[in-house]
């Protein structure tokens, strides 16, 4: 054999979303949904999950879409690939943080395979699109036997690898709200090479007006069990001009608010140290001309 053999499983190929939900309900808890497979089919991962059934989405072409709807925002179907984020002009123009997360995401091959939804459902603290989506705000649409429900991205990740999705639900769509004319966003990730996961990633979104930020959302990855919102730090930014002094306070607050661990990609101290530096750079980039130099 020319490579490691994946554990055995039975394959489910639903022909419609409702059939998929029926199957999830029937085999509750024994099924792994297969989207792009770039997490699920990694030998070390599937060996741990050991699904009895793998439910593939290959017949559900109606989930391929990535649609921008003026006034509403971005709708991302469960089969839309990370590569599609780079092709859709509105993503770069209106959701820069999400666009930037796709630009540095893995390699061309992986971007052609990986779905944006898979990134969110994997519930890894290092997920790049996940980090951007947490800052932009949004909802995950879950379809279960009783119909659809929407879960706010702020409530979606429960702990490492665990989401609010129930076993009999299929995640069908991501919704990211329309930015206003004063919305700014940016993403940055610190990594060794592109095919490595992030050592740390940061995304911000704020509504910028002449004398500072009206409201801010900051998310940071690889500094806790799930991507984290830094709510204490966000408060410092609201309603005041973005000055060097403020940025120093913001950096210090972020270092206190995170809970990084040491792993093969970075030490805890390193993550704490760079978190503030990276965050201030991302804020400066997003704030652009509204930044006040003193």
């Amino acid at each position: 054999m020319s490579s490691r053999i994946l554990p055995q499983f039975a394959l489910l190929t639903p022909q419609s979303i409702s059939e998929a939900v029926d199957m999830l309900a029937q085999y509750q808890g024994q099924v792994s949904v297969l989207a792009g497979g770039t997490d699920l089919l990694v030998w070390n991962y599937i060996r741990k999950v050991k699904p009895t059934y793998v439910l593939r989405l290959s017949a559900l072409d109606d989930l391929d879409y990535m649609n921008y709807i003026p006034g509403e925002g971005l709708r991302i179907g469960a089969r839309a690939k990370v590569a599609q984020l780079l092709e859709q002009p509105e993503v770069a123009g209106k959701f820069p943080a999400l666009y930037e997360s796709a630009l540095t995401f893995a390699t061309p091959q992986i971007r052609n395979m990986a779905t944006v939804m898979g990134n969110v459902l994997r519930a890894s603290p290092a997920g790049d699109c996940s980090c951007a989506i947490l800052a932009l705000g949004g909802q995950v649409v879950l379809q279960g036997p009783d119909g659809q429900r929407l879960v706010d991205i702020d409530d979606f990740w429960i702990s490492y690898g665990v989401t609010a999705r129930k076993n009999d639900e299929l995640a069908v769509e991501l919704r990211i709200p329309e930015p206003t004319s004063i919305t700014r966003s940016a993403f940055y990730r610190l990594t060794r090479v592109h095919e490595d996961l992030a050592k740390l990633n940061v995304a911000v979104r704020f509504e910028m007006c002449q004398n500072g930020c009206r409201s801010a959302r900051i998310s940071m990855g690889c500094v806790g069990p799930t991507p984290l919102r830094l709510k204490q730090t966000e408060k410092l930014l609201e309603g005041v001009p973005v000055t060097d002094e403020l940025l120093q306070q913001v950096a210090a607050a972020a270092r206190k608010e995170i809970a990084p661990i040491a792993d093969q990609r970075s030490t805890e101290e390193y993550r704490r140290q760079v978190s503030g530096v990276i965050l201030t750079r991302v804020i400066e980039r997003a704030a652009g001309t509204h930044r006040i130099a003193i």
Partner: protein
Amino acid sequence: MKTKMITLCVNGKDHRFEAPVNRTLLQALRDDLRLTETKYGCGTGECGGCTVLVDGKDSICSCLTLAVEAEGRHITTVGGMTRNGELHPIQVAFIEEGAIQCGYCTPGMIMKTASILANNPTPSEEEIRTGLEGNICRCTGYEKIVQAVQRASQMLDTSQNQKTGGLGT
């Protein structure tokens, strides 16, 4: 063992065979179809040795794709690049630029080049370098590989003008 009849279209030819459903595309190519030109490197989507082309355009890692998921798609491996015994301009460019040392990464590099040029026939050096991310050469021959992609781009551009060339599907 859960098996399934699988039909794969590889290099323009349909192959029908029975295989376990957990078979990856890479294993199907190498072990079921004996098309061993596509290489197993890391098995985790990082090295690009297993890169194949889907529907003449997109590069994917065959090690992280189930064989059944490739049904209904046109898969091209480096073995499908030659036409009537003649090397494809990308292959010629790699040879002429000496963009090969041990050769293990070459099938993946050629398929990645095919993908880069199918999406952008005249890439800049920077676009080539970003495009080649995901294909690792451990003999550190990137300089020549980049030159080979540039040369292939020029050769294809010329042959396109003469209405020949084109990428294998």
